[in-house]
């Protein structure tokens, strides 16, 4: 497990899913979690600073998760932020597009607590 103070931003337009991801993160030992309801909200919160990790949905109003990811990678202050996509989008093109845009991981919904744990550990291991 990484630093328990790692600050997460959970971006999803469905409040149910935000709560589930927040609870799962808490179970995994990370209780420093904030939420955003779409890409615009997410990007604003990230720009305000202090976040170490982003868990984002793809299909959201105003700004989708891929566009937010591309904006994160373009912003020199945020470019190195790890981003895990957690989405119902399951086309191969989606997964390839996310990887090319610089996503650190891709979890397809519906997912299990074990999958989230595994992907987080893998990302923390890589960024060390």
């Amino acid at each position, binding site marked *: 497990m990484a630093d328990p103070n790692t600050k997460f931003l959970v971006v999803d337009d*469905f409040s*149910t899913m935000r709560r*589930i991801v927040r609870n799962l993160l808490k*179970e995994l030992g990370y209780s420093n979690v904030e939420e955003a309801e779409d890409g615009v909200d997410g990007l604003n919160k990230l720009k305000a600073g202090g976040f170490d990790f982003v868990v984002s949905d793809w299909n959201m109003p105003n700004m989708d998760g891929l566009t937010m990811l591309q904006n994160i990678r373009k912003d020199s202050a945020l470019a190195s932020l790890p981003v895990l996509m957690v989405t119902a989008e*399951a086309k191969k093109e989606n997964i390839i597009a996310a990887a090319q845009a610089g996503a650190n991981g891709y979890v*397809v*919904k*519906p997912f299990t607590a074990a999958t989230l744990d595994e992907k987080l550990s893998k990302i923390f291991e890589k960024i060390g």
Partner: protein
Amino acid sequence: MRDDNKAVNDEHDEMSADHLDKQGDGKEGEMLHRIGQMTRGLHESLRELGIDKMVERAAQGIPDARDRLNYVATMTEQAADRVLNATDIANPLQDNITSQAAELEARWKDVMKTPALKSEYNEAAEATLVFLKQTTENSNATKAQLMEIMMAQDFQDLTGQVIKKITELAHMIEQELVRTLVDFAPNKPVAAPDNNSLLNGPQIAPEKTENVVSNQAQVDDLLDSLGF
């Protein structure tokens, strides 16, 4: 009635033949002319059969279907929220019991290390220890079930997305129908749907769909094969 129609058709055929002979502009002209006739025929039949009324009713029915789908989305969201609220309340209660049982267990073990206490006392203490152990085990098992209840609510996000998509589709069809009613031009070209969008939401039947993954293992395999 049938004879009348036949007469009309024959007349049309003659007319178009005449027309073509005069214009002499070949197959394309003939095709356009026929499409024009078919359109007028369709327009008239629609009105005669009262299909314009049916289209009108369909256009009126869709907002109702949309409201119903919205209702389903709202109700499932409320249900998911209620369950999540309940697990939020029950989780810390269970955590509390677990940690208190562990604390008591340790205290009793300490006390029992001290010699020269009555055997009855020891027996009671042993029974309490067994009970405390059971409490911890049951609390952990309950907590696992609470997690399961929480994870089961992920349907709300997925069904919500599907319902939203259908609602949008219904809205689009409704607008299209209304527009059709307004200008009544059935041969107007309709824009082809965009199938290459990256925003498709949950796959309802991934096994039946090309180019779609159906589980996390396939996502991981694809990313591995690409070297990510």
